[in-house]
Structure formats: C-alpha cells, structure tokens
C-alpha cells in the first residue's frame, strides 16, 4: 500500500512592533521577568485593550506580498481557556474576520517549484511564559511576552513531505524578513510553527485523521518531527490501526513525538466576538500607502537578476532568497562592473564560509566595499582566484582591507611573462620523465606542471599565462 502524506503548517510570526498588540508595553526580548508589562498585559480588573495599528500595517504587508485578499474590515474574537500564563483567561485573536485572507507563496523543494496556498493570516496576542526553574517546587509567571503581536499564517494542507515543509517555512521566513515585519530569529522564538500531519491512500479524496505537533522552532526539528510522524502513522495504518486525532509534542532530545492531549481532552475554546473592541477598518488610502511602500520581494528580485543582470537561474535564486545576501550583491555590484563574478563568488566561496560558521552575511566581517574591491582585484588580475580565496578567508578572520592584505602578504599576481617562462622552463627541464609521459599521451599530467609552477610562485602566478606558456613548452 502506498500512503500519501498531507501536511499543513500554522506558523506564528512575532511581528517586530515596538509595543504590544493591545498595550503600550515594550516587546523587547530578554528583559528581567515582568518588566515589560503594563496594566493591560496583567489583565487587571477593569482594563481594556487598544489595538496597535502598526501590527495591522505589518500584517497587511505580508498579505500584499503573498497576493492575498486583505480584509479591510477585520475583527477580534476571544478564545477562552485557563492557563497561568494567560492573564485574562482568554486570548484575543481573529477567528471570524482575519485581516489577511487567501494568498499563496512559491517554494523550491526537491529541485522544483511549487505553489503553496495560504488559507489565512490573522493577528493574535502571545501568552506569557511559565518559569519552572527559578523557585523550588513553585512555578513563576513571566508576562514579558504576553500581548506580543503574532501573525498566525495558516497553510492549506498541500505540503507533501518534510522537505517541502521546510522549504515553505523558509519561504515564509524569507518574505517576513524582506518585508521587515519580523526579525526571523528562531532562537528567540520569533517564528514557531505547529505542524499538522495526516496520511491517506493515494486515491482517497478525503484527508486522513491528523495529528498536530505543537510549537517547533527550527528547520531541523520540523524535518525530523515530520519524518518521525510519517513513520509512526504509516506503521499504525499498515498494521490496520487508525491514527488518533490528537495534539503531540516533539522531543528534540529523544527525536520523537509524544501525545499531549487527545481530541476528547481538547479545550472547547468558546470563541465569541471580543466585545471590548470595535472592528478595525483599513481605508483604501491606507491600503494604497502600504502597497506602494512594499520593497522588492525575493521572487521579483530573482526575475530581475535573471532578465536584467543576466545571472544564472540557480545563482539568482540563491542570492534573492536571503535579504542580507541580496543586499550584499546589489551593493557590491554598484561598486564593480562584473556582476556575474560577484554572483559566482557570493554563491560559491562566501556561501561556503557562511554555512561553515552558520551565520548571516551581515554578521560576518565582509563589507560590500571590501567585497567589491576583492572582485575588482580578481578582474584586473592583481590576484588569482586561488589567492582571492585566501584573501577572503583573511577578511573573514580580521576584517582587514583587501589591498592591505595583498600588500602585507605580497600576494600580487606574477604577470611578468618572461619570469613565468623561465620558471616553467626550469620545471620542464627538471622533470624529463613526466614530460615524456605527457608527450606519450598522458594528458592529465598537464595539471602536474601547472601545480609545480604555482608551488614555485607560492600561488601568485597568473594561471592563464602559466597555461599558455606550458602548452607552448610541452608541444
């Protein structure tokens, strides 16, 4: 039997507003417990929420960037449940009339493009945190996070596997960071997601029973949790059982999902319209202002890089996929003529270093100025590509200027043809055996001679010249 996996994601994006969704308290991360809290966040008797317009503007930016319907009249509802970190005993959310309606986003996974439809995106307030390790035998409550604005983005159940789920999450992260509506810092909980996984027979039109895995906050864990869940559900179904509808937790240490509560134990949230808030109305003028202030988005950038800058499609996609990478590319291109060389270096050597250190380009020592100079020195043949790589590594470590590094280390490329020719001649003379073998048809030995010249010149020889000279000498 072949089973088809159906995945839907609910992504919670913390919007980077200065103050909370319904109060004037700061949303700053990492403060002393209960210092970013005002009367409203504590849910004191008699307090009332006042919506933060900036959160709406940011949500609308997301909607416009994902070709979504914007509901110019949206409203809030109460979701009622008891929990110590939920001060009012209800969460204010948007159930009936969310600010953002149906939209879509393009992802790239398993070597191909796919459109994932987005059902809706709505605003809601975050809860506080229970603190279990501060007081012996007691639980503390930190309300700093309570009331932080979240945009909950709900996908259609159209995601087919773990790779697509990760690609979708990445695409959402890309868009919200490009739009500057979320810092995208997963480690601080700026983006978290709930994953719904179900399995069905390929021919079935109905979806199978789903399990919801709560609160995952890294790409790696999304992939692993889904893989575990697919395996678990397949085993159940293969053995003739049925999957229970339940909420599960992913344990990253044991790499497994565990049942948290069953459908029967699920809360009845008793949703009803929030009577303390009137519907929020966005005028046509406001909507147009937001639309005209939208930055160029990854997809548009990618197209422009291919059509106007003439980059390779794969390079264009990688550069356009990250805001910091795209910024670096565009700034460096302004300062040099060779855009395709800039692109090749960004996608190649620079990306390799970023991956190694697991950082974003704006966290590295590389500035667009320095990068542009480096590309310039390659173009004007002051240094070879190989030397450039070591210069880049030096910049990575020290942040020093390209020309200073070249000068200090004497890395200027040897262009002097007669000097190179005399070095090459000597090597040819010293290795008669190899020369004979080469002339006898062992073409691969050409690399040996190039290598020897490079070794002799400490890598500073212009490789193109070396090639030409050697070809002439070995004819």
């Amino acid at each position, binding site marked *: 039997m072949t089973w088809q996996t159906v995945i839907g994601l609910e992504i919670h994006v913390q919007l980077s507003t200065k103050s909370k969704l319904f109060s004037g308290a700061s949303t700053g991360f990492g403060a002393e417990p209960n210092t970013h809290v005002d*009367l409203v966040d504590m*849910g*004191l008797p*008699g307090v009332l929420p006042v919506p933060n317009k900036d959160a709406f503007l940011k949500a609308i930016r997301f909607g416009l960037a994902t070709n979504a319907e914007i509901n110019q009249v949206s409203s809030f509802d109460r979701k009622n449940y008891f929990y110590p970190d939920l*001060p009012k005993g*209800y969460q204010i959310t948007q159930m009936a009339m969310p600010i953002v309606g149906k939209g879509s986003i393009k992802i790239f996974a398993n070597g191909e493009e796919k459109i994932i439809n987005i059902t809706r995106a709505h605003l809601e307030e975050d809860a506080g945190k229970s603190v279990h390790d501060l007081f012996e035998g007691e639980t503390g409550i930190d309300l700093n996070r309570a009331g932080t604005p979240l945009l909950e983005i709900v996908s259609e159940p159209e995601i087919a596997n773990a790779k697509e789920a990760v690609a979708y999450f990445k695409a959402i992260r890309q868009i919200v960071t490009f739009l500057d509506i979320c810092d995208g810092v997963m480690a601080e909980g700026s983006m978290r997601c709930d994953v719904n996984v179900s399995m069905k027979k390929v021919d079935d039109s109905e979806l199978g029973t789903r399990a919801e895995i709560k609160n995952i906050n890294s790409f790696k864990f999304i992939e692993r949790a889904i893989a575990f869940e697919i395996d678990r559900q397949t085993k159940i179904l293969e053995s003739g059982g049925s999957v229970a509808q339940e909420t599960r937790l992913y344990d990253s240490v044991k790499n497994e999902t565990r049942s948290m509560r069953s459908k029967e134990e699920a809360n*009845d949230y008793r949703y009803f319209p929030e009577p303390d808030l*009137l519907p929020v109305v966005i005028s046509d003028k406001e909507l147009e202002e937001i639309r005209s202030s939208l930055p160029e988005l990854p997809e548009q950038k990618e197209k422009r890089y291919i059509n106007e800058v003439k980059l390779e499609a794969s390079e264009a996609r990688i550069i356009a996929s990250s805001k910091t990478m795209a910024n670096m590319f565009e700034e460096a291109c302004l300062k040099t003529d060779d855009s395709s060389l800039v692109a090749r270096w960004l996608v190649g050597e620079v990306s390799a270093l970023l991956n190694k250190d697991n950082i974003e380009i704006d966290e590295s020592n590389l500035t667009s100025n320095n990068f542009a100079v480096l590309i310039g020195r390659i173009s004007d043949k002051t240094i070879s590509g190989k030397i450039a790589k070591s210069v880049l590594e030096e910049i990575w470590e020290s942040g020093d200027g390209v020309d200073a590094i070249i000068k200090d280390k004497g890395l200027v490329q040897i262009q002097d043809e007669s000097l190179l020719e005399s070095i090459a001649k000597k090597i040819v003379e010293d290795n008669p055996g190899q020369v004979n073998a080469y002339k006898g048809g062992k073409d691969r030995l050409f690399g040996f001679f190039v290598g020897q010249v490079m070794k002799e010149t400490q890598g500073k020889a212009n490789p193109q010249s070396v090639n030409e000279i050697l070809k002439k000498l070995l004819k």
Partner: protein
Amino acid sequence: MLQKKEISNKEMVEDTFTLIESNKHLNAFVTLNKEVSLKKAENLDNNPSNLPLAGIPIAQKDLFCTKDLRTTCGSNMLSNFIPPYSATVIENLESAGCISIGKTNMDEFAMGSSNETSFFGNVENPWGEGLVPGGSSGGSASAVAAGIVAAASGTDTGGSIRQPASLCGITGLKPTYGRISRWGMIAFASSLDQAGPMARTAEDCALMLNEMCSHDPKDTTSLDENIPDFTQNLNSSIKGMKIGLVKEFDLSKLDNDVVKVFEESKRHYESLGAEFIEISLPNISLSVPTYYVVAPAECSSNLSRFDGVKFGRRCENPKDLEDLYVRSRSEGFGDEVKRRILIGSYVLSAGFYDAYYKKAQQVRRLIKNDFVSAFEKVDVIMSPTTRGTAFKAGSMGSDPIQMYLEDLFTIPANLAGLPAMSVPNGIVDNKPVGMQLIGNFLEESKILQAAHSFQTSTDWHLKTPNGDIS
C-alpha cells in the same frame, strides 16, 4: 442641590461621615475613604477652587477601580484587591473637584436586582426595614436616598442604575453606551455595561454627567462625539414634545396603584404640553431572554481572569493547578455569579453557540432596529421603571427567573445602547415609584429636559423616608 453650603469643605466631609455612621444599618458602604477625603477637604479650605464640583462628597460604586483604595465589586474574590490605578470616570469626577468619600455596596460583580448577592451583606432601603434597595447599584441608591451624599456613581448593565433609583425614590441615568469610558470599570458584560450618575434630581444628574463623560483613547468603545453641556436644555419647555408609549408593555399585570401613578404622570406631562403617541417595539418581548444569553456569555469570559493566580483570592495550600483554579473560584464567587458563569459557558460552547449566542445577537439587532423606527415618531419613550415597589429581602424565593423579570422594562435600553433614566413619580404604600424615560442615541439632554420639567412642577423627587426636602 450640589451648590455650596455655608460651611467649610472639611465640615461637610465630616458631616458626611457622621451620616454614614448614623446610617450604618443600611450597609451602603463597603470601604470608606475617610483620611484622604478629609485631607482633600482641608486642602480645598486652604486653597479654594473654582472646579465645577469642588468639595462635593460623592459615593463611588465599588465596581470602579480606585487607586490605593480597596475595590471589591461586592465579591469575596476581590475582598483583598487594591487597584494600582483609577477608572477614567473616577479621575474625571475627582479632577472636577469631587471627593470620593467611600465605595458603595453592590450585588456581587453587579449581578442582581436586590443587593442580596453581595459578599458584604444586604443593603437596606432607607424607605423601610427589610426592604431591598434594588440592584446592583443598591449601595449608591441607598446612600443618596438616605441623604448621606448628594450624588453617587452607578453602573447599569440591565437596569442596575434605574431599578434601584426607582426603588429608592431618586433619579438615576444610564447614558448612551460609550458616553462614559469603561476603563477601570470591572466588567460584567462589556457590550452592555455603562456608568452613570445617581442623585436626587435630574439637574444634579446633568451636573454629574457633564464631568463623567469623556472620549477616552483607552476605551475603543468610548464615543468620539461632541459632549454637550447637559444642563443647557434643562429649562426649555417641553411643549410639543412627543412621548412614546410602548404598545407591547402590558401594564395590566402591574400593581393597580403603580399603574395609577403612571397614568397621573402622563396627565401631568399632557398638562405641560407634551403629546403621547403609541409606538410599537415588536421584538421587545424577547429582551429578557436575549439579555440572559448575552450578559452571562460575556460575564463568563470577563470573570475568567479571577483564577487565583495573579490577584484576588487564592485558596489555601492548592494541591495542583486544577485545585488552585477550582477552589479559588468556588470559594471566591457567590451562587448568582456561578450561575451566570455556567449559563454563559453553556451558551458559548461548541454546538450551542449558533442556537443561543448568535441568535441572541441577531435578536438584539432587531430590538435596536425597533427603537430606530420608534424614534422616527417620538422624542422620548416613557414606561414604568419597575413592575412594582421595593420588596422584602428574601421574598423572591429561590426562583432566579422572578428576579430576572425585575429588569423587564430596563433591559431594552441596554440592548439597544440607548440613554435612559428613572425619575420618581409617586408613592405607593409608603414606598417610592419611578418612571423610565428612554431617549434616542446621544440624546441624554432630551430625557433630562423631560425629567427636569417634571421635577420643577412636582415634588416626588423631594420625598424622602425622613420627610420632604424643602
């Protein structure tokens, strides 16, 4: 009535506390604010002020948060709660010069029509031993009726200002929903709650209302509308004013004497030049059931924050989280509050929402529309405020429905968000009777005008249990 007396501010406040003491049996106050009040009065004596209500002692319903002064909402749950902030309406009144001398007793969380549900005990009506003052603003009504204060604040969700005003023989006004900020008012039913003044006369209510109203950015449901001087039209003639009588209000079921009083008031209005027109509010009979879905639904959610975790009452030695919730709430809330939380949770629960809450909201819109059509024909609508006069404590028995019907005439104005007031218009069996005047949206001035013209030509509002005020 709120004019300056020929005594010092301090003497006035001292007198007020003497009156509170001599009326202790009324149990009208939960918490007194003596020290602060005396200090404020002394300050005023030393630095005379031109503020409109400078030095006037008023009583505040114990549902408004008062900074550093205990606010209980009539509940054991909040018997130890001292708010770190004051309600906007409290700030408005105090910055107009009022002195908040204390917090008045009330039905627990404003749920009740007789002031029998307060954790701090029943309030007595000064008109007779064992008589209820009505509710939920019973403490405020009783304090004004007994002459302890000239005015008090109240709140009205389904009649909580007007019904006790009627039963205690004073004047009380519930403004248009949104006129007075709800910031700092402990919520019962957010879409219905509205604060308002309770005083001897319509004129005093107008003076109070002038200071209580404001557009408050902290309450998004507070109206951003022009706030008139509510005293301006008081003396205008009501000649030609069209007063609506609701066809669907069946007065034949009321006490004969109460109906007689109502008919007399009609004749009096006619003598002042008003014209009576019968109007129809076809959906009005659905008001009470609609209210008892909407109000409990909102209350069940509003009262969730009282969970023993952050403020208010917490049970002793909770075993675990569940135990903390269950015992804190079981011990903290009284029966009527529990009943309404249960009803509210039920009507909002999955599978029942459409049949109850959603349907109730639809009916509410119909009732609102009925009023819109009616006000195309009339200036104000007049009815009795209550079905009868003040009743004995405990006499409603164990059937809560009987008590719920107390608000038959008052609930519609809350559902429609309209201004309405109760005005004393007679005495039956030595107990006061009130009539209700309902105005169109934002037209408090018109009902105040109608009430004032009645009061300048009758003396029902001057009758007190201790004799007439001259």
